[in-house]
């Protein structure tokens, strides 16, 4: 349990400087509006902000009161208002209405908008249209890398997924490129770069362009991180759609980890209040169970509890002096551990209760059947029943997507009947959700062949310019087949098991899914790192519909130490799951690597489905 790293495993770079950098930048921006001011903060930015600053810092820089940006009129009576927001149209409308209301009332104040992590031209356009451009000064706070843990950086941009993978909007590509540029400035160049996916390729190209423009900054720097691997979420939807069974993933699926911390409700704390708990490597108990299959966690926690008991018991029979030592030196640690244990035991109990109630066993069985591709009929009727009983709109949708991707689309008869029943059970407006899922390639109907859709052929006839090659790509999600079965075979994603898969002693990354499936994304990373290229993976790349979109870029770097060559930064564009993180941590321990994760946001199946869902209040 709690496998140690190999003794030769490299040290992780110190990412805490990213926090200080962000904090200093924010302070600098606040100072641009001298004097007392009220600060309006967008809800989505509060948790990230909490991780790098606190109220006293804001107060020191003359922030008077704090408000949440919401659709209510502001009560602030301050002469200076500062808004800290994501670049969203609705925020601009809110600010504009506030400024215009002041104007009507004949009131003059100073307004400043700080966009995080960058401003968009569309936002400025709205300010201009609303007649407040010029009344409001705009700044950017390039805070796009939040270290959530020693090996995990998050951009905290959940909307990246929908914006790019559904709407095809590339607005965040510059943000990604800037973030990568910052990393290479701080931690040296990356001698080896690999990537797969369209968004990955574009981000990479823009990043390279930035490096060229600001040539010299990374020159001569010793690389600290030997490899960078970028991949698009749509290269592997399957893994993100599975139920998670490693502890951290399960906690995320059950309670939703938000910005590295979780709110445990009364059902976990066994009291009448909720408890906000930070989940990271500093939590000693959590750190040992986070990557474990859930079935191991109980045993570990009770062992831990027994040890703790034994340590407390030692105080019996101590003399005064020993007692004094015990109290001053050990007690605090023991108490801390005790608290941690109680919280995680409570969480486990609550998870067990919930999972038993929803027939988790049967659900997992169905998922495994889908992954392996047997008993498709049975799985389909399981999903149907799920829908008919109105179990959960998100779960039902997730299972349908899993069925669709693993089977290259639903057969038309099933598609129609499942869709009809879904609309009847959860509401007709989900017609829009189905249209979104189809566009994103998550839930499709099997086409009677590989012919192009009508729109596509019409478009390709029209195309005459040099962009011709790129046109069909624009429709890639519509026409592309997921080929999961073939990929799974090629990459051996379903381990052959003789006898029981021992989850206590995992032998491969499949343990994160109870030994039933090796996460596709992680397998690809493993294979490429082994070969230091895509060589020999042509067929897989083709099946992934990424023939033009997989690349390797190596610079001959003699300064790269062997230690740095075992540090790998994995970048997930569109989100990564805790299961994938656990799987790669496992791989790292096996091979003596250490992985560092950079993701646009932590995701899971429910978040993906919600992002596609059109039904909003």
């Amino acid at each position, binding site marked *: 349990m709690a496998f140690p790293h190999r003794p030769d495993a490299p040290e992780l770079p110190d990412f805490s400087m990213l926090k200080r950098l962000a904090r200093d930048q924010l302070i*600098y921006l606040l100072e641009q509006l001298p004097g007392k001011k009220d600060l309006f903060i967008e809800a989505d930015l509060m948790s990230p902000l*909490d991780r790098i600053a606190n109220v006293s810092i804001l107060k*020191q820089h003359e922030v008077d009161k704090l408000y949440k940006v919401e659709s209510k009129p502001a009560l602030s009576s301050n002469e200076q208002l500062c808004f800290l927001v994501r670049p969203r149209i609705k925020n601009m409308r809110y600010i504009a209405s506030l400024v215009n209301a002041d104007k009507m009332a004949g009131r003059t104040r100073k307004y400043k908008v700080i966009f995080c992590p960058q401003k968009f031209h569309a936002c400025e356009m709205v300010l201009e249209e609303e007649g407040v451009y010029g009344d409001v000064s705009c700044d950017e706070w390039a805070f796009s890398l939040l270290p959530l843990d020693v090996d995990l950086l998050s951009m905290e941009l959940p909307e990246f997924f929908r914006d790019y993978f559904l709407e095809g909007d590339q607005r965040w590509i510059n943000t990604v490129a800037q973030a990568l540029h*910052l990393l290479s400035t701080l931690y040296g160049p990356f001698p080896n770069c690999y990537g797969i996916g369209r968004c990955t390729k574009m981000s990479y190209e823009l990043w390279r362009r930035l490096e060229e423009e600001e040539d010299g900054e990374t020159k001569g720097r010793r690389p600290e991180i030997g490899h960078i691997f970028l991949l698009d979420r749509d290269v592997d939807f399957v893994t993100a759609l599975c139920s998670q069974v490693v502890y951290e993933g399960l906690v995320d699926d059950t309670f939703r980890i938000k910005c590295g911390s979780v709110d445990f409700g009364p059902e976990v704390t066994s009291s009448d209040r909720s408890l906000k708990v930070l989940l990271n490597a500093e939590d000693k108990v959590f750190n040992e169970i986070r990557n474990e299959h859930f079935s191991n966690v109980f045993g570990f926690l009770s062992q831990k509890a027994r040890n703790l008991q034994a340590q407390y018991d030692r105080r019996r029979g101590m003399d005064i002096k020993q007692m004094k030592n015990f109290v001053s030196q050990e007690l605090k640690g023991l108490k801390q551990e005790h608290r941690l*244990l109680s919280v995680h035991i409570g969480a486990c109990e609550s998870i067990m209760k919930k999972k038993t109630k929803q027939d988790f066993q049967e659900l997992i069985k169905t998922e495994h059947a889908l992954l392996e591709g047997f008993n498709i009929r049975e799985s389909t009727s399981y999903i149907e029943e799920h829908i008919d009983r109105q179990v959960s709109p998100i779960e039902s949708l997730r299972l349908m997507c899993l069925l669709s991707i693993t089977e290259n689309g639903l057969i038309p008869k099933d598609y129609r009947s499942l869709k009809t029943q879904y609309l009847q059970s959860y509401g007709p407006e989900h017609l829009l959700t189905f249209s979104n899922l189809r566009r994103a390639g998550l839930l499709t109907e099997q086409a009677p062949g590989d012919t192009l859709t009508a729109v596509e052929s019409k478009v390709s006839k029209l195309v005459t310019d040099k962009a011709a090659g790129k046109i069909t790509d624009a429709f890639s999600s519509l026409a592309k087949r997921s080929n999961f079965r073939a990929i799974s075979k090629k990459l051996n994603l379903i381990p052959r098991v003789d006898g029981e898969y021992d989850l206590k002693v995992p032998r491969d990354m499949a343990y994160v899914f109870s030994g039933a499936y090796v996460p596709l994304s992680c397998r690809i990373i493993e294979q490429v790192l082994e070969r230091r290229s895509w060589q020999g993976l042509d067929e897989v790349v083709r099946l992934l519909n990424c023939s033009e979109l997989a690349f390797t870029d190596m610079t001959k770097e003699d300064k790269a130490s062997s230690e740095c060559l075992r540090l790998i930064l994995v970048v997930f564009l569109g989100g990564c799951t805790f299961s994938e993180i656990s799987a790669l941590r496992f791989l790292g321990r096996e091979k003596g690597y250490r992985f560092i994760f950079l993701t646009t946001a932590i995701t899971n199946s429910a978040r993906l489905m919600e992002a596609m869902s059109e039904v909003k209040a």
Partner: protein
Amino acid sequence: MNRTKGDEEEYWNSSKFKAFTFDDEDDELSQLKESKRAVNSLRDFVDDEDDDDLERVSWSGEPVGSISWSIKETAGNSGSSQEGREQLKSRNSFSTYTQLPKPTSTYSLSSFFRGRTRPGSFQSLSDALSDAPAKSYAPELGRPKGEYRDYSNDWSPSDTVRRLRKGKVCSLERFRSLQDKLQLLEEAVSMHDGNVITAVLIFLKRTLSKEILFRELEVRQVALRHLIHFLKEIGDQKLLLDLLRFLDRTEELALSHYREHLNIQDPEKRKEFLKTCVGLPFSAEDSAHIQDHYTLLERQIIIEANDRHLESAGQTEIFRKHPRKASILNMPLVTTLFYSCFYHYTEAEGTFSSPVNLKKTFKIPDKQYVLTALAARAKLRAWHDVDALFTTKNWLGYTKKRAPIGFHRVVEILHKNSAPVQILQEYVNLVEDVDTKLNLATKFKCHDVVIDTCRDLKDRQQLLAYRSKVDKGSAEEEKIDAILNSSQIRWKN
């Protein structure tokens, strides 16, 4: 689907969270009930702890001094509580960031390098930075506006696009010929930055006629997608529909129009709007769904008016016993069916609110109908209706029990609605698969079924094992003993 949104609202609004006072802080951790099994015995030792404050930053329900906490404070006492502020000040002295000196900008840029642990890389890093630290780290601020405004008007398309990427104000007015405009667009697309693509599109939208803009975008799919998303975001529905019409994307057009109904709250208006959607060029399959949506809302409005009246009149027993928890408007069909099975089960097919009428109108499959009706009637503990639901007569007049959803499901649903054992027993007995039957019977304590099944299986061992599970001296025990002692059974073990 909005659960997280809702949760968040609750998190912000509920009084539970606002009521944070400084007095109860010591409870924060001792409130943590001791872990139930293993850690139990340690309670006394830990309860009288004196918490140290540093730890509480990450452990309290909402860390004191955190930004989220403070905003709730503002919201809570929208005036300014002087007292609270004072206490806040004293609390903040515990924060990890004690008294950070007000940094000048140079301080803030260089300060973090001091913390670096590896002296080896220190030199080169700061060297690299001394080049142009302001450029790469600090946003370009505080300069006179004119400095980043572009008056010279001679930037090439690629320079212009680069300036746009950096967020600088940049006049596009000099790109007047169509060729220049398109070159600008192509330049933006080739740089991949969606923000810049949109900026150019905003300019093109303003300076080109619709027809020309649409025509040019039709062969530039990346830009086209950006325009569509932009129009959706700013809510320019009219131009969006024009564009989709031009592109001949009829289905998307219909869906975009249909999407608008989500913004209409008034049920009558929403219904009228849905009526306008019925004729739109959806796929054949979706057309039927839209028609159903319209019909459903139409029905719901009638049922709602009628039932609200009945309920307030107070003459109808069912509404008195089980007051409605919510309006039926805009609920899914299955929920409506459940509602109708709950409140209007016995109504004749002719009325809009009768379950049979709903079933016919919306062609609800048998399975779905039975499942829903069962859940509704079981909730009312109307066991007679449940019975009737599964009873069929054959041509000879014999009755037979039949369930399109499988009797094991029936049993589960009945159990969920806490049906009495006699009822459960009857349906457990109807489960065909013997193993499933035995499992369910054991799970739901249908003793007779377990005993009889064991007897039929001639499984003496299992029966013996079961004997230990029933109460001593109970009728079940007697029955088991009688069977075990019977000489007529040839046990298989």
